[in-house]
């Protein structure tokens, strides 16, 4: 350890006085030139060597440290005439308006002063915002006559960026400064200035600090040409004008010329601080690009604050494409060997691990479980090379630190952007694998919102034991199965895992014992005792369930019959689990799917996250090897095939609804339509047509569904909730339906019609974007066009929505991130203000709750009774 780490306890803000600027300056800068002909920096120029060094190897003329270690030193420029600081122009204007033009006192009478003083002082002491009171003062300190010296006041206006005009006379910066100087110190509080750190006249600059070269490094291009930083360019401008102004003043040039130059100096100083100030044309680079000056460096998303201070670049991280691997645990991540050899973990050498460490060093940086660097006790970092490794091994002793490659079992942080919630960054255990992609278990796709169409993810390696301990205990994937958003599982099976589990637990699935054992073995589960008879799929699945699990629920395939037959359900949709035995019902999306899995939910809540991890790891494998891979599972257009007679019925049905639409239009044209309350006739017609066409589409769906049986793969996927919906299938098989733009039928395009293929005023089904064809049959050109219109709206919608909700989330997080629960159960912000006396009125953590409730009381009672009856037996 390197001794005590100091803590920053506070940061004070204040203005710099001209004296401090001069005092901290190492040199006065006068020459606008930077380098002489030989390429050496000019003394008293902008690149003066006393301002610090950038090139490593050179020594700083001021502090003597080497390049890289020297953080640079400020210089200063003395202005020939004072200039106003743009950032304070508004403040200066307000101050001048509320102070006397002669005696400089704030235009408040004694009683007002007394009242405001107390209010201001108490808020300042409490560290609260005073801008609202200042605004009030500003309004009441607008008097015709000074209450102290009786001087008549004249109105001062601000002319866009920086010029202040009193009556018709434009005040010069010197005059402004003089006036600010006269303001007595006891009045500072009313104009919002803290006399301890600032004086109003300091807002008018007489001397400018010149930042060290490290702040504005010049770049040497390949051609050997030097390219200076934007700030340097701006400082050159300032110096040049300042010099000319000084010369002209000394030579006694006419007032007009001096004023022009003064104005120019003001312009350059203004753009030096802020090149986007309103009313000032931005200073440009030779190429026409606006310069990036001080304010631009700090501001906005790419500014210093948001991109370098609130977010920082890190080492020991990796990024690559992701791909799926169902054989991994949800807690694991497959790391390509190439990456494993690049990112390292620092391990302190001890007596007990020294041999292992030597082995790593002997492997070197290019053989996998190797080491890249060692750090000697004196802090020197040494790279391990094949040539040097022998000596390194010889010298290795406890106290050294070895940076070894990451190996299986190391814990790393895994992340996918956008990181919208805490499940976007979870800790995984490393599995070093061949090839070049990160591999992850499919169950963790939903929390990361990842798919494998080219998504990339980031990995970070923890560097301290504290970080690893924390990650292992609270950031592991298994600790995040339940979402804090709603207290239910967010991690769970998706797609083929669900179909697989359905097929496995289906009534008709029976395996010979040896086959069943093969499946169990392949799923990496312990072999059970032999039964000497064939196994049902449900029996195999039951092996996964904890022995004490009791659960009753309705599966996703439930048809929602009017009267539930419960245990006699003919679709096997009534799931009963008793003492860890799946007695009846199929396992599908409701069983262990992400977002709704009941079994999964029960296991995490009644047992433990690691039991849930076991269930998911092996359950998904079982679904793949015992379900999908035993039977084979595929889908194609053949699955959406419907017989000719059905097609005829559909065509007839659509024709009938078209006729109905015509009738409605006719009724509308003959004024026979009755308007719905609060709607115009036109709107009523539109609503009625939409209703008729919607029903028509639904009815075609009903016809098609009649021919879709449960041995159809596409139907299995839709019913079990694995992928797709019945709506998707009927759109493929029968009729796509109405295309919508802006929530209604399509009505825009040409005058009174959507396309020139129709008559003017045609509002029939075809002309307004109803697609009669099915996806399978194919859309005609007009339908295709309307379909594209609807599709485009969807795309635009998504694009806008992401931007809007992203900004909303940023604001929400920013407003709430300081809140935390304190020891007394209150929720407080960083000032200690109580926001809630008890978190959520009951102090329950939603992530640990049962869908927001403390407990499912009915289930608790049921469980309790079951236990009792068992005990009495």
């Amino acid at each position, binding site marked *: 350890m390197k001794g005590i780490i100091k803590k*920053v*306890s*506070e*940061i004070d*803000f204040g*203005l710099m006085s001209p004296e401090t600027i001069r005092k901290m300056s190492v040199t006065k800068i006068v020459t606008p030139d930077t380098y002489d002909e030989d390429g050496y920096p000019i003394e008293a120029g902008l690149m003066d060597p006393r301002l610090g060094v950038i090139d490593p190897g050179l020594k700083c003329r001021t502090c003597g440290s080497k390049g890289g270690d020297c953080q640079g030193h400020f210089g200063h420029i003395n202005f020939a005439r004072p200039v106003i600081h743009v*950032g*304070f122009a508004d403040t200066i204007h307000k101050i001048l308006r509320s102070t006397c033009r002669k005696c400089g006192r704030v235009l408040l009478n004694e009683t007002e002063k007394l009242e405001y003083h107390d209010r201001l002082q108490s808020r300042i002491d409490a560290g609260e915002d005073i801008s609202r009171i200042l605004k009030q003062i500003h309004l009441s300190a607008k008097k015709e006559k000074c209450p102290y010296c009786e001087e008549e006041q004249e109105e001062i206006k601000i002319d866009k960026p920086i010029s202040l005009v009193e009556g018709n006379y434009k005040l010069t910066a010197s005059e402004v400064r003089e006036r600010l100087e006269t303001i007595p110190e006891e009045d500072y509080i009313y104009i*919002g*200035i*803290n006399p301890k750190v*600032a004086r109003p006249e300091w807002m008018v600059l007489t001397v400018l600090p010149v930042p060290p070269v490290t702040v504005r490094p010049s770049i040497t291009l390949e051609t050997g040409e030097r390219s200076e930083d934007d700030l340097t360019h701006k400082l050159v401008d300032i110096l040049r004008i300042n010099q000319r102004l000084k010369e002209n003043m000394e030579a006694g040039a006419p007032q007009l010329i001096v004023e022009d130059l003064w104005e120019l100096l003001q312009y350059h100083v203004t753009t030096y601080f802020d090149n986007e100030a309103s009313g000032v044309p931005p200073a440009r680079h030779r190429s026409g690009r606006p310069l990036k000056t001080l*304010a631009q460096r*700090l*501001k*906005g998303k790419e500014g210093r*604050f948001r991109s370098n*201070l609130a977010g920082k670049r890190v080492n020991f991280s990796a990024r690559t494409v992701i791909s799926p691997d169902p054989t991994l645990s949800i807690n694991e991540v497959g790391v390509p060997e190439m990456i494993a050899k690049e990112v390292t973990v620092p391990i302190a050498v001890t007596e007990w691990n020294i041999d292992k460490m030597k082995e790593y060093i002997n492997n070197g940086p290019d053989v996998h479980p190797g080491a890249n660097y060692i750090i000697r006790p004196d802090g020197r970092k040494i790279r391990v090379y094949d040539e040097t490794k022998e000596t390194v091994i010889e010298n290795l002793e406890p106290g050294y630190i070895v940076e070894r490659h990451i190996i299986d079992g190391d814990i790393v942080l895994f992340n996918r952007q956008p990181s*919208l919630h*805490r499940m976007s960054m979870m800790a995984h255990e490393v599995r070093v694998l061949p090839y070049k992609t990160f591999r992850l278990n499919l169950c963790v796709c939903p929390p990361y919102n990842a798919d494998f169409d080219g998504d990339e993810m980031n990995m970070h390696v923890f560097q301290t034991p504290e970080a690893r301990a924390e990650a292992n205990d*609270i950031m592991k994937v298994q600790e995040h199965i339940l979402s*804090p*958003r709603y*207290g239910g599982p967010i991690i769970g099976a998706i797609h083929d895992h669900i179909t697989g589990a359905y097929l496995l637990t289906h009534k008709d699935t029976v395996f010979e014992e040896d086959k069943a054992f093969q499946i169990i073995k392949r799923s990496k589960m312990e072999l059970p005792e032999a039964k000497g008879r064939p196994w049902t799929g449900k029996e195999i699945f039951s092996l996964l369930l904890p022995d004490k699990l009791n659960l009753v629920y309705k599966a996703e395939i439930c048809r929602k019959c009017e009267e539930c037959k419960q245990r006699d359900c003919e679709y096997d949709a009534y799931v009963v689990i008793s003492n860890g035995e799946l007695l009846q019902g199929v396992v599908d999306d409701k069983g262990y799917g992400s977002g709704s899995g009941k079994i999964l939910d029960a296991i995490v809540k009644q047992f433990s996250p690691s039991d849930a991890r076991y269930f998911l790891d092996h359950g998904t494998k079982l679904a793949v090897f015992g379900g999908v891979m035993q039977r084979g599972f595929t889908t194609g257009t053949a699955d959406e095939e419907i017989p000719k007679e059905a097609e005829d019925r559909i065509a007839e049905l659509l024709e009938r609804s078209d006729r109905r639409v015509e009738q409605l239009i006719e009724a509308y044209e003959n004024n026979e339509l009755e308007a*719905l309350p*609060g*709607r115009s006739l036109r709107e009523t017609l539109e*609503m009625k047509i939409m209703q008729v066409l919607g029903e028509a589409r639904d009815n075609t769906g009903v016809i098609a569904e009649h021919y879709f049986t449960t041995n159809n793969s596409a139907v299995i996927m839709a019913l079990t909730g694995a992928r797709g919906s019945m709506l998707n299938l009927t759109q493929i098989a029968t009729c796509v339906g109405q295309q919508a733009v802006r929530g209604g039928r399509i009505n825009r395009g040409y005058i009174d019609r959507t396309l020139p293929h129709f008559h003017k005023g045609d509002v029939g089904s075809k002309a307004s974007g109803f697609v009669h064809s099915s996806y399978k049959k194919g859309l005609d050109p007009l339908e295709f066009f309307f379909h594209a219109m609807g599709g485009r709206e969807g795309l635009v919608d998504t694009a806008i*929505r*992401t931007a*809007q*909700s*992203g900004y*909303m*989330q940023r*604001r929400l997080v920013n*407003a*709430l*991130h*300081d*809140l*935390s*629960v304190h020891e007394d*159960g209150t*929720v407080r*912000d*960083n000032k200690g203000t109580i*926001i809630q006396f008890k978190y*959520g009125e*009951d*102090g329950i*953590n939603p992530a*640990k709750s049962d869908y*927001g*409730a*403390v*407990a499912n*009381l009915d289930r608790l009672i049921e469980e*309790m*009774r079951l236990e009792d009856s068992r005990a009495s037996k």
Partner: protein
Amino acid sequence: MDVEQVQTVVNEVGADYFPIKLVEEIAEAGERNNLTDEELEKLVLKVKEAYEREEVEPGESVGTIAAQSVGEPGTQMTMRTFHYAGVVELNVTLGLPRLIEVVDARKKISTPTMDIYFTDEFKNDEEFIRKMGNKIGKITLNDVIKNFNVNYMDNVITAEIDQDILDERRLEISEVTGEIEKTFKHVTINNNLLSFETTFSNDEEKIQQGIRELRLLADKIRDLQISGVKGIGKVVIRHEQNEWVIHTEGSNIGAILKIPGVDIVRTTTNDIFEIEKVLGIEAARNAIIHELYTTMEEQGLSVDIRHIMLVADMMTSDGTVKSIGRHGISGEKSSVLARAAFEETGKHLLNASIRGEVDHLTGIIENVIVGQPIPHGTGSVGINMKKID
């Protein structure tokens, strides 16, 4: 099984910190399952165990979790601004735009609506409610006249009050004529025949102007409001769950609550600013919770109520409804760095310098900026060394 009985059991086992709502739920569940006294005690103990396990730990960063839980589903919401919520005839802003509107604490929301309920005495009195509906809803002269005619020759506008409509709207003709006489000076009323004149002189040169004036007068006549509460437009009267309810477009809860017969407990508006003004900050807090929760729920997204409560409590904690963003909570943070890192970087830094502000680095982002552990979760604890001589 009554609540008091459960409460005594709860107190006996030392779980007196249970919220009343939970006690009530236990009582209900006990009723449903016919619990014996013995079983009840056992159940309470089990609930206590669960309660203790599920309590939030000190240091938990509940603010960030709440913000993420409310913000993350935003990506899954539809952009479709207008949708018919329950009432087909009225448009209401829903989904993400509504969420943003609530969180922004907008003074003027895009679709204010009210649901007006009536006391038991009147809630099934259709006639009364229809009459109320007409009194509340905006009716302009245009709605009750027929044969509207602008006569450019004689510079008069004639119209006829439609008695049938008046009857349907339950208006008295005297109310209408009274209102007309109050507004227009040059008007002659003959039973239900109206004729308006402009202040037009017969000067030839002013003819052009006269026509313009006549048209303006026509618009003014048509737009004359003869009935309705200020701020409220269309009303829809519906029979819902065995009572008559009025839904309105536009909102003015202050005026509506003063109308006799209105149930002041259930009548509500979706305008949070108005609720704050009329009913106070606690009501506004509940309104924010209700609006956020129903907006999410309507989109089929479940968000735990506690997250929404925290957002609402943060917005209302100092007695006024503050928006989430630079003009509200984020702009009033005590830390300079936190404000500068959010928005308007330059302004905050410059102001801090003349005010001589001090940043005590107590928040999250300040500590991230200076590179120190944040004071939440595992970072909220430390070790104090005790010197032993």
